[in-house]
């Protein structure tokens, strides 16, 4: 049986519910779950003050309601599954190492900060700092996958070291900034200054993008790995056209200020990329 939580009373100030993780709820009854502690602003509260709890925890957690004020769902999650029928607040799946989170609505800023495994799927839009390093930290996502069907804000994958971020819509400025490795696929528009400071890693764009002056054009080709990658992304639910899989891409290397070992791949049919 699944543990189901339905938002009954909207929090008046941000609610921090890091307890909402299948690991932490393993074997917990609905009654017990309702007594678990959440942080409502500067005070403790029972989960049951806000949520109608039903079922029992068996590794799967279903949340329903507009949870845009609820932060830190799935913090440190290692296994199991969370499905959110609604939107969620910041820090979804922070530091998660395994399992899966599916959000039917939107997610706030900081989805999957410094996660190292597992998968987060956001069917709506996501905020800024999707899959990013925390401030001051040089290393962001260390593994795992984040899929956003809609748009994402600025600094997607800041400091990313491994893993995959796939965005069905547009990405904001500085996607893949300071990337160390990993892959970011953007099916919509890539905004300004993608890949600034990247050392390694790949940013894939299906639309023309203005690149920094420190990125150098290499060639047009059909990267074999990209076929594998895009087919994988297709398997995660994003719409990948055959023309994307079979397409030819411009390879731009950068960032020249750093190792110059990263790349931005821009679908050729999208037209000529231009330097900014």
């Amino acid at each position: 049986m699944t543990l189901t939580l339905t938002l009954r009373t909207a929090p008046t100030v941000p609610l921090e519910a890091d307890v909402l993780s299948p690991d932490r709820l393993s074997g917990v009854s609905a009654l017990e779950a309702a007594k678990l502690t959440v942080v409502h602003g500067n005070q403790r509260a029972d989960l049951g003050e806000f949520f109608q709890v039903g079922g029992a925890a068996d590794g799967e957690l279903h949340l329903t309601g507009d949870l845009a004020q609820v932060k830190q769902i799935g913090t440190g999650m290692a296994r199991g599954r969370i499905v959110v029928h609604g939107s969620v607040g910041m820090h979804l799946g922070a530091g998660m190492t395994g399992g899966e989170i599916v959000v039917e609505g939107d997610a706030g800023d900081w989805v999957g900060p410094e996660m190292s495994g597992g998968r987060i799927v956001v069917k709506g839009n996501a905020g800024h700092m999707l899959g990013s390093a925390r401030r001051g930290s040089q290393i962001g996502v260390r593994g795992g996958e984040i899929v956003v069907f809609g748009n994402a804000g600025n600094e997607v994958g800041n400091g990313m070291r491994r893993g995959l971020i796939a965005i069905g819509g547009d990405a904001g400025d500085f996607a893949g900034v300071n990337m160390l490795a990993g892959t970011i696929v953007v099916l919509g528009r890539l905004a300004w200054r993608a890949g600034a400071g990247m050392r390694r890693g790949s940013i894939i764009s299906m639309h023309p993008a203005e690149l920094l002056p420190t990125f150098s054009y290499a060639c047009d080709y059909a990267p074999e790995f990209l076929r594998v990658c895009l087919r994988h992304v297709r398997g995660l639910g994003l719409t990948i056209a055959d023309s994307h899989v079979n397409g030819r891409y411009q390879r731009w290397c950068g960032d020249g200020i750093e190792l110059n070992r990263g790349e931005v791949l821009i679908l050729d049919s999208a037209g000529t990329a231009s330097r900014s």
Partner: protein
Amino acid sequence: MLVRGVLIEDTFAEAFTMRVARLVITGGTPRWAREAGLKLTGFATSVIGCKCEAGIERELSETETPDGRPGVSVLFLTMDKESLPQQLISRIGQTVLTCPTTACFDGLPDGPDRLPVGKALRVFGDGFQGSKVIGGKRYWRVPVMEGEFLVEETFGMQKGVGGGNFLILARDADAALAAAEAAVDAMANHPGVVLPFPGGVVRSGSKVGSKRYKKMVATTNDAFCPTLRALTESQLPEGVNSVLEIVLDGTDAPAIAAAMRLGIDAACRPGVQAITAGNYGGKLGPHHFHLRRIMGGESQAA
């Protein structure tokens, strides 16, 4: 027992535990995948002389490969754990890396041992190579003049079976060959099985050691050579003038048994007198394929 008048002798094929890897080679067209597969598995008939045995398992359609391109699946076997990666590294390096349009993927993702093949091959990139993790698997992208060669970092290795076999005893060489061809055709594309010899067929069955030359590890199987019927302790029934052998290697015994059934059945045709198999008395190899049991009958053989 008889299958369409062909005697299935009550004996068994004795096979060995080998180490097997499966490679999926894709190409821009089926042609180039096949070319790479053929070169890769060339000169890989028997561990006795080739250190490895390999063959194309089957051709793969676009829907069956990791990158959605046509490909071939190859099984690669060695006797011990150590030589499998060595063989793969040197052979893939010379025959797939070099072959236009191809990429090379692991076909045994659940293989308990992981062979660092792509990891070794990456250094051809001279530091310019890059890696990518997709769906939990790491790939290496090695820059080449054409573009990039993509190879998976590790390949699964598991225990396999080598040396499944049966012998077609026929009235004459034409009948033997026709039966062998029919058997090979029947077994083609059978999952988990490859036939490492030319066209799947071997005419030079061997015995262990030599009666005359100390250094030879294997010499002609004189007991089945028709020309030696008068000179040796021949095991050829009367009327048999030509023998061809089919050797099967595979990922597991059931796959070999299933393929043998198809192959033997197809080989039972006019001009074939009997089907038998090679063994060493059952003491050397752990896998025994009893011909009659395979064909659905009873066997008394040890």
